[in-house]
């Protein structure tokens, strides 16, 4: 569905994307995580042909991102971070206006979404709250039932119950075969519910890309309590983070397996306890190296 190869983008002297590689097969729900300013939005905009890359390639359904065909565009849905709209129109009119662009517009589905999310159809768009505007943006992006839905922090302004409703709707959509979703967010708990793959961006590159489950199975924090003073040279190969204090050490690893624990028990004459980390903790570990 998506192929990104050594993608680069700089603004004047600022290098934002520094060789991004990412491949997303169809049927995937990919969560894109990264600190503020690491390039998530730039990546999404390059992928959708809204920004011209300075190097490398990006393609959707085999189409080059900068020259997307009308057919490919009709199969895309995009919710930008800030929804652009027409403040003078009523909600109902914006929906009708957008629907006119798409032959495959699903009117009953859109009506259902508006009802579910209590969008005030007769109100003008201008005075809508940020959350309502974001909801409207989501409805507009989903109305033509796109094969690829790209959401850039779609839920930042939604309250918890609206977010949950949005996630349920997203899950209904991905329950149909070959629907692909790419969404960036800071809310890791949302991502843990709906994403089956995660890409973590760091300094303009993809630092990790893979299954969410395998990420959780591989990244662990180990607490080591030795019966002897641990040497200053204490180290674990490939550790994300390592802290030693007297007879105790805390180590985070990203390639955990049981044999590592046995090895540590014997090497350091120590009790080793293994802690599972959730996505937020993993994210923090990866950024505290």
């Amino acid at each position, binding site marked *: 569905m998506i192929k990104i190869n050594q993608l680069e983008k700089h603004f004047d002297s600022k290098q934002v994307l520094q060789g991004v590689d990412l491949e997303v097969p169809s049927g995937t*729900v990919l969560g894109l995580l990264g600190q503020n300013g690491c390039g998530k939005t730039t990546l999404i905009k390059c992928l959708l042909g809204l920004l011209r890359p300075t190097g490398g390639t990006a393609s959707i359904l085999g189409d080059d991102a900068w020259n997307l065909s009308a057919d490919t565009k009709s199969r895309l849905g995009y919710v930008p971070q800030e929804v652009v709209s027409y403040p003078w129109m009523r909600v109902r009119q914006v929906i009708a206006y957008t629907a006119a662009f798409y032959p495959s517009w699903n009117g009953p589905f859109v009506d259902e979404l508006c009802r579910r999310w209590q969008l005030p159809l007769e109100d003008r768009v201008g005075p809508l709250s940020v959350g309502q505007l974001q909801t409207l943006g989501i409805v507009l992006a989903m109305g033509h039932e796109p094969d690829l839905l790209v959401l850039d922090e779609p839920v930042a302004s939604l309250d918890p119950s609206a977010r*949950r409703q949005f996630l349920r709707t997203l899950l209904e959509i991905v*329950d149909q075969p070959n629907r692909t979703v790419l969404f960036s967010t800071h809310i890791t708990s949302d991502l843990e*519910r*709906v994403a089956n793959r995660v890409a973590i961006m760091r300094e303009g590159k993809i630092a990790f890309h893979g299954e*969410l*489950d395998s990420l959780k199975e591989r990244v662990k924090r180990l607490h080591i309590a030795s019966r002897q003073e641990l040497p200053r040279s204490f180290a674990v190969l490939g550790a994300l983070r390592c802290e030693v204090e007297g007879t105790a050490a805390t180590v985070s690893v990203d390639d955990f397996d*049981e044999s590592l624990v046995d090895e540590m028990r014997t090497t350091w004459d120590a*009790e080793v306890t293994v802690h599972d980390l959730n996505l937020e903790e993993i994210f923090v570990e990866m950024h505290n190296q």
Partner: protein
Amino acid sequence: MSSKPIPFEIHPSSGVPIYRQLVDQVYALLAGGQLAEGELLPSVRRVAQAAAVNPMTVSKAYSLLESQGVVQRVRGQGMRVTKPQAAGNLEEREDQFRRFLEPAFHRAQQLGLDEAETRQVVESLLQELRKTQNP
């Protein structure tokens, strides 16, 4: 069956992957007798909707349970709980059990229980199990 509430409690923000939580909970329900041979697991779609998690994750858990011989896919019906003890050879099952027990024994050590005291706890657990099975 379909109106029964979902028996799973899922914590998406746990360090334990959701599919693992589901697998573990099915084992716990079986051990506790809340899920018995011949019963159907709730459908993938129902679990996914009720818990607001990705249906692929629920499918993954169910497939794993199927490969471990705990449930069987019955066409047009769903996942049916099979007869217990049917799965895998003895060595594999013992190995699985050993991995499950190992942390418990480390805990005993940390609590300062010696070998005899640890054995006593294990014995009493086995005794309780005997009582519930042959009342």
